């Protein structure tokens, strides 16, 4: 059986692109997932959504994503309380004068693009968010439309909607290698040895992308890195923003469910290219560092009980941006991976554009600079506002 398009990977990127393609009647589409939808990085992430980036390119793209999130439940015909979009804002804290200056500089860019971020002095932060400890804070920026959505249900909602539009989703089906010939991509080979042919193949496998591309001799500069998160018991909502610091790396937020979710970047950064190296077991060091951090930043919540901690993989690229679009060496092969910790928030924004790209239509937002070729040309896309 031949498909028009095979999508590998059942995370936010894979399912959202599958949905957008099917909506555009792109033909017979098959989505392959080796475990279950959202089993990889999408299901492990903190699921924050923000437009407070530093580069025009990112701010514009995230504005699209935010707008998409706002109508997602309606569009996908999924219960809004499950997708759980919570726009409680992101409170970006500074911890040094230079950082504060650069945050303010970014706000100017954001305002130009109609992302109306507020600039708050420590006193204003204290007044607006009395629970936040502003010791050592030089000021903060706040954008009220940033927030959070449930990563599981968002992926499930896309999956359901995609199936309604005719996408075939096969779970527990592992792709072991890509199949190509001189003309271009031919299809994929599964763990059980079967080969499925397709005219186009999209690899949306996050940290596993490097490994899969390697099976046809491509060397994609994308690696996995362990990041850890913990979550507390739920309590009634008392705190709305995601408190975040780019320099110190922490992010802390109360989810709509009531639990607090928080994370810190790893102390030791590994570059894992091979899935055999992937280690997402949690560490006690994180628990200690995170408890210290939250007690310092939000002292009121120090009595909360921790329910669970876990780790997942960031999929990192040299410039912390997606590697997205056609792989020119292999006609018919596309990649959409490498969110570097932002895959979930970008997903709904990127998907329609990526679908246009795969179908040869004109792009409604120019994302061509995120193509794989940028590394060969040395045209990296630099973004200053990232965690970790």
């Amino acid at each position, binding site marked *: 059986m031949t498909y028009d398009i095979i999508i590998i990977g059942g995370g936010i990127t894979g399912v959202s692109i599958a949905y957008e393609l099917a909506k555009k009647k792109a033909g017979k589409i098959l989505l392959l997932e080796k475990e279950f939808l959202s089993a990889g990085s999408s299901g492990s992430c903190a699921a924050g959504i923000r437009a407070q980036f530093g580069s025009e390119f990112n701010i514009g793209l995230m504005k699209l994503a935010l707008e998409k999130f706002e109508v997602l439940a309606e569009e996908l015909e999924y219960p809004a309380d499950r997708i759980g979009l919570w726009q409680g804002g992101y409170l970006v804290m500074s911890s040094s004068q230079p950082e504060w200056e650069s945050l303010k500089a970014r706000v100017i860019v954001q305002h130009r693009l109609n992302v109306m971020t507020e600039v708050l002095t420590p006193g204003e932060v204290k007044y607006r968010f009395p629970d936040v400890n502003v010791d050592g804070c030089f000021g903060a920026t706040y954008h009220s439309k940033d927030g959070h959505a449930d990563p599981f249900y968002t992926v499930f909602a896309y999956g359901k909607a995609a199936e309604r539009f005719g996408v075939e989703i096969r779970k527990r089906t592992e792709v072991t290698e890509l199949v190509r010939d001189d003309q271009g991509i031919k299809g994929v080979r599964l763990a059980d040895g079967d080969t499925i042919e397709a005219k186009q193949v999209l690899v949306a496998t996050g940290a596993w992308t490097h490994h899969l591309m390697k099976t046809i001799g491509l060397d994609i500069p994308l690696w996995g890195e362990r990041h850890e998160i913990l979550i507390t*018991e*739920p*309590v*009634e909502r*008392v705190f709305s923003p995601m408190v975040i610091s780019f320099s110190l790396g922490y992010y802390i937020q109360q989810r709509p469910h*009531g639990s607090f979710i928080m994370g810190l970047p790893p102390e030791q950064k590994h570059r894992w290219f091979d899935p055999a190296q992937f280690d997402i077991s949690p560490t006690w060091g994180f628990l200690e560092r995170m408890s210290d951090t939250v007690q310092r930043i939000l002292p*009121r*919540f120090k*009595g*909360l009980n921790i329910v669970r901690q876990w780790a997942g993989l960031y999929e990192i690229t040299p410039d912390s941006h997606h590697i997205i679009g056609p792989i020119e060496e292999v006609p018919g092969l596309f990649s959409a991976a490498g969110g570097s910790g932002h895959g979930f928030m970008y997903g709904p924004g990127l998907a329609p554009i990526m679908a246009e790209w795969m179908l040869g239509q004109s792009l409604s937002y120019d994302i061509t600079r995120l193509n794989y070729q940028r590394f060969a040309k040395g045209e990296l896309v630099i973004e200053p506002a990232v965690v970790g």
Partner: protein
Amino acid sequence: MKKEWHVYLACDKIARLLVSLEMNLVCFQTLERRWPTPLRRIKIHPILTFPPKPKVQFFFEGEQMEGAEGEPIAAALVANGISTFRESVDLHRPRGFFCAIGNCSSCLMVVDDVPNVRTCIVPLHQGMRVQVQRDKGVLK
């Protein structure tokens, strides 16, 4: 005396027979009442001894109650005949004592204004204010 005994014996036999046929009978239940009426606190036990502990007063929903110092809060509530400890968050169904070992979160209550206290393992002390928890708990 002798006659009464035979009537009684016959009654019991019929009742037992019917029970073994799995039929519910008032007669059977009257027989069972012959066991001692239990009190919530066990006074005498053939094997165990329960050394008396100092009594303490505490408040459940504002009502004064008595318990033993150091026993779990939930045990003291059960001894006072309280069965509802919290309401489930979504459907607001009553929840009570269930696992007794701090595993199941059925007994989370507000104790001295602190929500989500596992009352089945937290010891009771004099003057504690215990309240049914009806939400996820509010941090003070």
